[in-house]
């Protein structure tokens, strides 16, 4: 099955060669590593993944994260970690990883039907 998409949506202008005529440049690799940014929105809450950015080192990553992700008081603390150090589970293994939890409904409090007299348990 091969799809051909011709419809031009907003922000989706078809590629063709008639650009505005500036010569193609060589790709200059700045090669600043990618960092993942985690923000704590207020004291007492977990840091939560906010997004990613490129920076030369950790100090710059934190400064950039401050500018990009906390302009409206979204955070009181920032963690950054180089993306290459994050390991993720494989979505293809999702079934074997998470499915075994499906049939263990006795792990949930609602599994147990108690008499009405027993309140607050």
């Amino acid at each position: 099955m091969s799809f051909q998409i011709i419809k031009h949506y907003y922000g989706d202008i078809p590629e063709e060669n008639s650009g505005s005529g500036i010569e193609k440049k060589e790709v200059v690799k700045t090669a600043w590593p990618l960092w993942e940014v985690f923000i704590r929105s207020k004291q007492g809450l977990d840091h939560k993944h906010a997004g990613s950015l490129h920076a030369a080192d950790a100090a710059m990553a934190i400064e950039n994260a401050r500018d990009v992700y906390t302009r409206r008081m979204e955070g009181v603390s920032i963690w950054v970690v180089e993306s290459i150090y994050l390991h993720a589970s494989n979505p293809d293994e999702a079934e074997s990883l998470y499915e075994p939890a499906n049939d263990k409904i006795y792990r949930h409090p609602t599994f147990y039907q108690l008499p009405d007299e027993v309140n607050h348990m």
Partner: protein
Amino acid sequence: MLVQDMEQIFQDKIDREIKIEPKDWMPEAYRKTNLRQISQHAHSEVVGMLPEGNWISRAPSLKRKAILLAKIQDEGGHGLYLYSAAETLGFSRDEMINDLLSGKAKYSSIFNYPSLSWADMGAVGWLVDGAAILNQVMLCRTSYGPYARAMVRICKEESFHQRQGFDALLVLSRGSKEQKAMCQDAINRWWWPSLMMFGPKDSESTNSDQSMKWKIKRKTNDELRQQFVDMIAEQIKTLGMVLPDPALKWNEARKHYDFGAINWEEFWNVVKGNGPCNKQRLAARNKAHDEGDWVREAAKQYAEKKRNRAKEQAA
């Protein structure tokens, strides 16, 4: 597993409103369409800073200058959110930037129009950001997870952009005769290009359904455009101005505003690089990039030096 089966599983997920994440299997055309759309969107944010940057030093008051700076800074941030989302599809930031600078990549053609007066800052906020927001609100529900998340963040920040634009025009519309004329002139110049932002007419699109079927997009160009016209035709009454379209008229049967024909020749001309400011915009981006070269290099060297020093100390 056969590719057909993979595509079936993929489509099932989309149909059940399960977001597609970077490591999930996806059809190559889905990846490409998203990559093109997200990167063009990112480029639009970045180039979109230029017409407004033109007015930072000439804003009429400190308040307006601070607002304009905040808005432009947001746009830089929005570009970054979007580049990050596009990078998850396996195309590097450097390659994307390079495609923009070389003129290969496209961006919204609206930014190839000049910002001639202060009133343009109001019209850009109200009309251009207004049009963008309609599209972006829809894209908060797009099927590719990283794009949807970037859009949610952008929409939260963007609503002030449109309001400040309307606010600036409102002040002008209640001002002197000259200020009123300036307001009307800006609306006249930005109205039609804003309508073009939604893209070609649905009827001119072949093979139209794929992006809808994949839920990359949930409304057609014409639907969004009509929504925009209906919204602006009402809002302009508050300004006491008129839209430059004699055919604009409420249609009681359709419960929508009818509007005149769009000059598509102009649209395609601007897309193809012959708009009033295409060359200027790209030249400005290239200049900024080239002049920042030593900064990027210095930061890289400095980071390396610090790493080496840390290694020496450890040894």
